[in-house]
């Protein structure tokens, strides 16, 4: 039972990180039908940007205020890079065959990954201890302050995003654009602005995810975006790509799945089982758990 509860806590923590990153994939896919392969590397870049902001801008301060500023600045920087990415790598290919955009996404991924290596070097860097090492022993289950923060902040961000998309005017514009871009234009919706907004939201959430990865795992490498990106991508497919609550659910489930495999089977096998899970989803339910509601009468 202890293993179960411990892995439940661990699973929810990594699941929230997967979910935050998965939202970036799913929102871009929802509107553009494009897998933004550069998103994982954007997440990796966020950890390094956060590291530099901590050392260069904040003078290694770790007060609560300083940590909040680090998060906000990192999200802002990554949002700008996200807009730039869309302008340079995707917008010129908007009318091109879809394969061209996929190739461009892979290229952007390599550019960002190598960019991180050129700026911060190829060796693993240690992410600063922004959150004090506080642990609670709850009858055999150990939970850290960092886990609580990751889970709580992720939930707050996800609920805020959900409300934004479901209840606001811009949210309605996002939903309309993801269903039918031309029809959305006829309503007066500026689809270019919607796409820019999606990159801003996706990159900011990814930035928070990247900082969490740094805080939780401590060691950050220039090529880690590939691994975390892939996990988040699987989470997005698991929940139903293009579906926002789906990405949240998929992330959490994948985190739990991973933690339980690591807890009950072996952590070396966690990756293999994750990919087996992906294959099974694609065979049994290609549209994912919440998949796109199909209600169209022709």
């Amino acid at each position, binding site marked *: 039972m202890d293993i179960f509860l411990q892995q439940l806590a661990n699973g929810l923590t990594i699941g929230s990180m997967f979910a935050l990153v998965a939202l970036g994939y799913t929102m871009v896919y929802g509107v553009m039908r494009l897998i933004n392969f550069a998103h994982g590397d954007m997440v990796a870049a966020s950890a390094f940007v956060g590291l530099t902001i901590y050392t260069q801008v904040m003078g290694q301060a770790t007060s609560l205020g300083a940590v909040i500023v680090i998060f906000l600045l990192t999200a802002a920087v990554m949002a700008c890079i996200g807009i730039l990415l869309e302008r340079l790598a995707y917008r010129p290919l908007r009318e091109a065959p879809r394969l061209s955009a996929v190739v461009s996404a892979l290229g952007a991924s390599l550019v960002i990954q190598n960019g991180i290596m050129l700026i911060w070097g190829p060796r693993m860097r240690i992410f600063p201890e922004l959150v004090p090492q506080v642990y609670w022993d709850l009858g055999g289950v150990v939970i850290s302050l960092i886990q609580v923060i990751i889970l709580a902040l992720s939930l707050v961000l996800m609920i805020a995003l959900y409300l934004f998309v479901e209840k606001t005017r811009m949210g*309605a*514009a996002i*939903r*309309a654009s993801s269903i039918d871009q*031309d029809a*959305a234009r006829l*309503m*007066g919706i*500026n689809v270019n602005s919607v796409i820019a907004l999606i990159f801003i939201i996706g990159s900011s959430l990814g930035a928070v995810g990247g900082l969490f990865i740094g805080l939780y795992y401590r060691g950050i490498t220039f090529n880690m975006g590939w691994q975390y990106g892939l996990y988040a991508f699987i989470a997005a497919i698991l929940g139903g790509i293009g579906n926002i609550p789906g990405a949240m659910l998929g992330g959490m489930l994948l985190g739990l799945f991973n933690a339980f495999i690591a807890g009950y089977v072996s952590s070396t096998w966690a990756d293999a089982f994750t990919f087996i899970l992906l294959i099974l989803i694609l065979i049994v339910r290609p549209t994912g758990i919440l998949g796109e509601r199909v209600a169209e*009468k022709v």
Partner: protein
Amino acid sequence: MKNEVLFEIKDLEVSYGSIAALKGISLDVHKGEIVAILGANGAGKTTTMRTISQLLKAKSGSIRFKEHELTQLPAHKIVGLGISHSPEGRRVFGVLTVEENLMLGAFSQKSMDREILDWVFQLFPRLKERRKQLAGTLSGGEQQMLAIGRALMSKPEMLLLDEPSLGIAPILVKAIFKQISEIAKSGVTVLLVEQNAKAALKLADRGYVLDVGKIALSGTSAELLASEKVQEAYLGKKH
């Protein structure tokens, strides 16, 4: 007030790659009129509508609405000027409810006008009954009502209707055409594209006949109905 030119297309050329779809068409619409554009499949009717809304860009020529030249504007700016487009194939947002579709129709407005919503529900009571239902689960005719209702939500001066009768049960076509004439009576100018020439000319004041990207004929509805060419080509009568 039917002699004030509200809308005018001049020498409009549009092509898809190297294939010319419109080879220099000109037409005008006066305030308060219902004008029909007729023609066979592939004549360029939908291309004309999509170019007016700037979903397609013209190769040359001009499209004027009041004092605005439309060809230089992005598509999302058009509805705000007072031209609303109910597109071919309806294009309702299938996974959203009827009500959400109508709210999106009012996106170009600062806020949704309850009176317009009530008017749309009065024109098409079915929509009111089904307002919580997903648009994709409506019948074809109901989706058409929704597409027209959604277009009305932006309080247009001119309404573009692309094939409102396409794939719809005849009894509903009749009902929808009746409501189109109601809409026109309320002061909205209507530009209508139809393959169903008879129904369209009954409704319209004037019409243009498009034939492979060119205007082949134009005139009042009575003239067109009487024209042998129209009768032969679109009304199935042999002389």
